[in-house]
């Protein structure tokens, strides 16, 4: 009959007897578990930041760029030929069922003046649909309307960075700013969005009606032309359908013959970002895998110490066998010892790993997220390591011959 509580008691006692050795053995597991948790926290944090950036950009996003011009045989970059118009925007909105919203962008950089302060920011001419495309709520005021677009009114929505630089403590709503010396009324303030995936400050921007931008600020080569279009598909599953419908519609509208190339480009930003997210995921796995190696080394440390311990305690094992310890009594004693070492090491390692992640966040400013899953995984893995690497020494101990073990000096 195996008496589990007393086996546990025996094991704990013999670990206590060798405090120094037990704690050094645990150190291997502590470092292993700590490293796994910190690395996974760093990886998960990076992934989380990328997902946030994806959603800050607006989800299920397609960007349509105009085509390139050819000048004396040299092909210029995308967007050099103005081929997209407001008419295309309306047509896409009406005729592509997979598209939820589409908004034009006609932008440029401009100096903005308020009172005695000035600031330069990107000014984006667009339609009210833009806020839907980018999932970008207002923190104050109201958005401009389709009437503003039709009437080319001089109203502006300001990003947080612009507000901070021009207004300080003053409430910007209703104030008049001058963009390229043209007065605009501030009717709304955009919520803060932070950095784009490329590291640009998305809040350093001003939204105005697209028609105002075309007619009063930046002008157009041909009337009604815009620089780019941003499209939000109904869902991520609709992205490729939306892309197909848009390509088909624009080719038709632009009278492009079957063999001719498109005079525009559709770019799937979400897909690009998802690739980035994928690669962070791989990085997280890689970091975790490298850290797991140290956990494995810690496990080998346990096996090493347990083997030494079995040899050193041969006589003790002999005594225990002589007074009636059975195979599994001995086996369990050494297994429980290994398991105790690895589990206590695991718990301390979790504490160290979480603190390590917090310290990294505080010192290096890396976003770190300790997930419950990684903690549970690291803990159960350390338990597994204890059993796996404890079994061989325990097995060896249980096979000792009691007579030889009793004679062992």
């Amino acid at each position, binding site marked *: *009959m195996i008496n589990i509580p007393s086996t546990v008691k025996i094991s704990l006692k013999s670990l206590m007897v060798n405090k120094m050795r037990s704690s050094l053995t645990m150190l291997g597991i502590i470092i292993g578990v700590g490293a796994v948790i910190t690395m996974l926290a760093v990886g998960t944090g990076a992934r989380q930041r990328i997902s946030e950036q994806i959603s800050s950009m607006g989800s299920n996003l397609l960007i349509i760029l105009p085509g390139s011009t050819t000048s004396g045989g040299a092909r210029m970059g995308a967007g050099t030929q103005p081929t997209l118009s407001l008419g295309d925007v309306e047509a896409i909105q009406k005729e592509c069922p997979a598209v939820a919203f589409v908004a034009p962008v006609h932008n440029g950089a401009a100096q903005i003046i308020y009172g005695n302060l000035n600031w330069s920011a990107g000014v984006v001419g667009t339609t009210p649909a833009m806020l839907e495309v980018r999932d970008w709520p207002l923190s104050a005021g109201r958005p401009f309307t389709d009437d503003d677009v039709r009437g080319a009114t001089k109203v502006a929505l300001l990003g947080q960075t612009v507000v901070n630089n021009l207004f300080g403590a003053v409430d910007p709503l209703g104030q008049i700013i001058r963009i390229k010396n043209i007065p605009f009324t501030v009717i709304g303030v955009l919520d803060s969005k932070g950095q784009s995936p490329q590291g640009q400050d998305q809040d350093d921007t001003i939204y105005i009606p697209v028609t105002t931008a075309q007619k009063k600020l930046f002008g157009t080569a041909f009337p009604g032309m815009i620089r780019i279009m941003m499209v939000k598909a109904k869902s991520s599953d609709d992205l490729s359908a939306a892309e197909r419908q848009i390509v088909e519609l624009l080719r038709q509208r632009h009278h492009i013959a079957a063999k001719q190339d498109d005079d525009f480009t559709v770019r799937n930003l979400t897909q690009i970002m998802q690739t980035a997210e994928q690669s962070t995921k791989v990085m997280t796995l890689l970091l975790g895998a490298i850290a797991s190696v140290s956990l494995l080394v810690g496990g080998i440390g346990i096996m090493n110490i347990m083997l030494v311990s079995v040899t050193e305690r041969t006589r*003790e094992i002999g*005594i225990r*066998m002589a*007074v*009636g*310890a*059975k*195979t599994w009594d001995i086996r369990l004693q050494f297994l429980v010892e290994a398991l105790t070492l690895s589990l206590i090491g695991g718990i301390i390692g979790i504490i160290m790993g979480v603190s390590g992640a917090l310290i990294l966040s505080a010192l290096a400013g890396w976003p770190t997220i300790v997930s419950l899953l990684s903690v549970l995984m690291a803990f159960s893995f350390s338990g597994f390591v204890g059993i796996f690497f404890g079994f061989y020494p325990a097995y060896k101990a249980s096979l000792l011959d009691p007579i030889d073990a009793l004679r062992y000096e």
Partner: protein
Amino acid sequence: MVLIDVRDITKIYPLGDIPLTALSNVSLTVEKGEFIAIMGPSGSGKSTFMNILGCLDKPTSGNYLLDGVDVSTLDRDLLAEIRNNKIGFVFQGFNLLRRTTALENVELPMLYSGIPAKERKERAAAALKTVGLEGREDHYSNQLSGGQQQRVAIARAIVNRAPIIFADEPTGNLDTKTSAEIMELLVELNTGSSITVILVTHEPDIAAYSRRVIKFIDGRVVSDEAVVKS
């Protein structure tokens, strides 16, 4: 009542090319309550015989009936169980667990027979009292003198109410005076609690405490006679 019935036991160690015969065709019986000394020069097979009687080893051939059960064919774990509740060992080198208290050393056999903690403590304390170590329960084994350590070992041997004590040179590491005390304790347990004591020794003085002396030479019993008390 026959406690030990050994029939035709042979033990051969397969050492290299020439097998070593440690015991050949030994037969004897031991009644309950006997006090036996096994004597013989080193290499006579007396230790091998003790190990087999103590269920630490198995004979190559022959049968060993302990309390009516043939134990010569049992496996490791069943032998462990028999050692646990039928046999107490007292060794020359005491064989106590280091850095462990006297009480915990005495508790050891009961840990393996599933006796609850409270009863274990009570019985261990009672056994220590029987061997005259009352008040030393919490001393670590290495803080005790040789004689006291051997008393702890005897307490450990009797705590599970084993009917037999095997004592292998129990006084080998002790001075004459302490040896006498330990032997008197064994005699007391033998007469008082009718525990069968089987002793291995090569000192005639120590063998004189027994009531029957069996001599081994070259793996055979050469004499088996009662001790005439003067």
